[in-house]
């Protein structure tokens, strides 16, 4: 499998995600946002960071960059796309994923380990996890509060598009363990076709024992 990691001005998890992808056997190239052509890739990763300094709305300016036209074409052909944190924000701004990510309900930047429940393990991104298993992965964001209309949330549920939900260590999805106010404790979703995945937690920060955990590696292992 071949992956491309898109580098925007202000991306800061691009190299971490490359290291994680390569650790799990995925050949990875870095692609600059202003490039016109995407190298032949099975997977495109939009990394975390603060693209364009989060100006206007997080991810909004990155979503209009030159390479994103290619990323959109790649996704329309069924190619895999994964957006982590700021990458998830870019995906909703590009309308490759529905809904929007707004300011955390407590107005604080939250950087800590949280637990998420894998609500759907039948995706290209979670196939190596077990259904309803609990993963401990760090989050680090200011705008991770997933918002969508009621109709859209119903649609996400009906199509099994909700993949990760914030939960407690035992896997209970409660208000207390919702760090940012997301509707239904949503931490990660896929599009209807299942080839585009956005998540706020950073699996690349939990893919090495030295970093304090390996739960994120299951996402990278699933990508084959």
């Amino acid at each position, binding site marked *: 499998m071949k992956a491309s990691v898109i580098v925007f001005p202000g991306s800061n998890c691009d190299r971490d995600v490359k290291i994680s992808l390569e650790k799990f056997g995925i050949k990875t190239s870095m692609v600059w946002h202003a490039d016109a052509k995407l190298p032949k890739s099975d997977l495109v990763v939009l990394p975390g960071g603060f693209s364009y300094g989060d100006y206007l709305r997080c991810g909004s300016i990155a979503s209009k960059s030159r390479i994103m036209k290619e990323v959109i074409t790649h996704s329309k052909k069924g190619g895999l796309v994964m957006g982590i944190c700021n990458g998830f924000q870019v995906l909703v701004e590009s309308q490759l994923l529905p809904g929007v990510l707004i300011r955390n*309900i407590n107005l604080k930047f939250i950087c800590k380990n949280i637990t998420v429940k894998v609500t759907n393990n039948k995706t290209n991104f979670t196939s190596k996890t077990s259904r309803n298993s609990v993963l401990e992965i760090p989050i680090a964001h200011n705008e991770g509060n997933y918002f969508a209309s009621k109709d859209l949330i119903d649609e996400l549920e009906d199509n099994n598009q909700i993949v990760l939900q914030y939960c407690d260590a035992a896997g209970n999805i409660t208000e207390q363990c919702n760090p940012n106010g997301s509707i239904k404790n949503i931490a990660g979703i896929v599009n209807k076709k299942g080839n585009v995945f956005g998540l706020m937690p950073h699996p690349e920060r939990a893919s090495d024992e030295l970093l304090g955990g390996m739960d994120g590696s299951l996402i990278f292992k699933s990508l084959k």
Partner: protein
Amino acid sequence: MKLQVIVTLKKDVLDPQGSAIKSSLSNMGFKNIESLRQGKTFEIIVKEKDEKVALSKAKDMCEKLLANLTIEDYSVKAIKE
């Protein structure tokens, strides 16, 4: 021609910043604030003499970049100087 674009959150979208500002104002003694919503304004100068054309360009800018229509509404007007 100078244009003003105002982008605000839709009525039923939570505005935690607006709520925080409202409660800060209340703490400062500004009582009786019923509601406070935060938004953004943009001042855009375009090389265009026809107001209709300028406004329709600004609307296009709003729909394509300045506003996220999932959560935001926008309004545009020309500013006479």
